């Protein structure tokens, strides 16, 4: 079986639409860039102040003043624009960002995401995540289905929430799940797993529709 993180990134990439402005979080979301369909052109925003970010074209072309939000060297497409953090977060909070893909620690039945701290253990801070989840037009959580065997899709988040905004889609290596008014709807499952496995690996109740699809990866 393929490394889960590539499965997730590959599936998330299919959600990108031509012309969108997209912000990819650190970790699995960053990998999405490698799987964008040929006919889809998107613009990448990075919250440290650029629209038109691209992967570093080749080693040796690093510039100390051009990085992504994870401080990794990147490139820029022709027509890129740079700006300060106030405008960068104005773009995010003001609803001008079409899509953000973020990692997650937990998502619950209400579609609430927790991804910025584990009290008493690990407190990295929210960085730009709270603004991204609150402000982006569409929020996709890209994460492994479980962590050391424990479900990450839970009835109710036990970790501090990132936002009370319901995320739009959860993509794991096992399934694609859409939070709705009625609860978490299982939209697709991986060809590599059986439905019972997905249900067992998920603490939250899942609504299983008649037209459950097989995840294309």
């Amino acid at each position, binding site marked *: 079986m393929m490394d889960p993180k590539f499965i997730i990134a590959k599936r998330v990439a299919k959600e990108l639409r031509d012309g969108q402005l997209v912000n990819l979080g650190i970790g699995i979301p960053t990998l999405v860039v490698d799987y964008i369909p040929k006919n889809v052109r998107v613009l990448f925003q*990075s*919250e440290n102040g650029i629209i038109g970010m691209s992967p570093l074209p080749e080693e040796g072309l690093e510039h100390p003043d051009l*990085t992504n939000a994870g*401080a990794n060297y990147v490139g820029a497409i022709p027509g890129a624009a740079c700006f*300060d*953090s106030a405008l960068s977060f104005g773009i995010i909070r003001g609803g001008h960002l079409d899509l953000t893909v973020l990692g997650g620690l937990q998502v619950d039945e209400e579609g609430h995401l927790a991804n910025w701290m584990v009290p008493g253990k690990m407190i990295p*801070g929210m960085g*730009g995540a709270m*603004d991204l989840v609150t402000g982006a037009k569409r929020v996709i959580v890209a994460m492994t289905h479980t962590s050391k065997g424990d479900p990450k899709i839970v009835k109710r988040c036990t970790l501090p*929430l990132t936002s009370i905004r319901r995320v739009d889609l959860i993509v794991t290596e096992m399934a694609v799940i859409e939070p709705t008014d009625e609860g978490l709807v299982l939209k697709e499952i991986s060809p590599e797993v059986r439905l019972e496995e997905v249900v067992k690996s998920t603490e939250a109740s899942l609504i299983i529709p008649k037209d459950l699809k097989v995840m294309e990866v």
Partner: protein
Amino acid sequence: MRLLSVEETVKMIPDGAVVMVGGFLGVGSPNALIDEIVRQKRSSITIIANDTAFPDRGVGKIIVNKLAKKVIVSHIGTNPETQKQMIEGSIEVELVPQGTLVEKIRAGGLGLGGILTPTGVGTIIAEGKQIMNIEGKDYMLELPLKADFAIIKAKRADCNGNLVYSLTARNFNPIMATAASTVIAEVEEILPVGTIPPDEVHTPGIFIDYIVKGR
């Protein structure tokens, strides 16, 4: 605006000062000024910055050298030393969402009484904060941030102190330039007046008190 040495400007910063430090994970940080703060052992300072960078980079060095008593930042995850000192109780960490942090600084610099942001509403960071419902949506009141000093980094300055930043090294720098009593800009290059066209200036020189030549 006056041109001074790195050493002289850092001497002006007293122990216990509140200092804004530009940069994003060390990119666009005033590194010569940071190194000099460490060398002069300026202690008990409160840092306002996007993050605490890395142990060996940017503002992270101030943390590692135990010179900060408090940090107001959005992220400490890349510098394990910050969390270690926090657990030991030797540093106070106030975490603020990045977009809220920069807007609080802007409010401080531009004379606004605070900001109303939807970010953080309903989460633990809203505890004890005033929520206002405006046109059917909840916003959280966050107060302005100001500092005694801002140390920032620009690519170029002219002799009037007008600044130009480079790519993603801009980040918090222009906003912090508005919000401190004394603003020190470290630049790579100082150009004659008139060589930066008015439309290309990112920070007008009136915000800058001192320019130092960095690396």
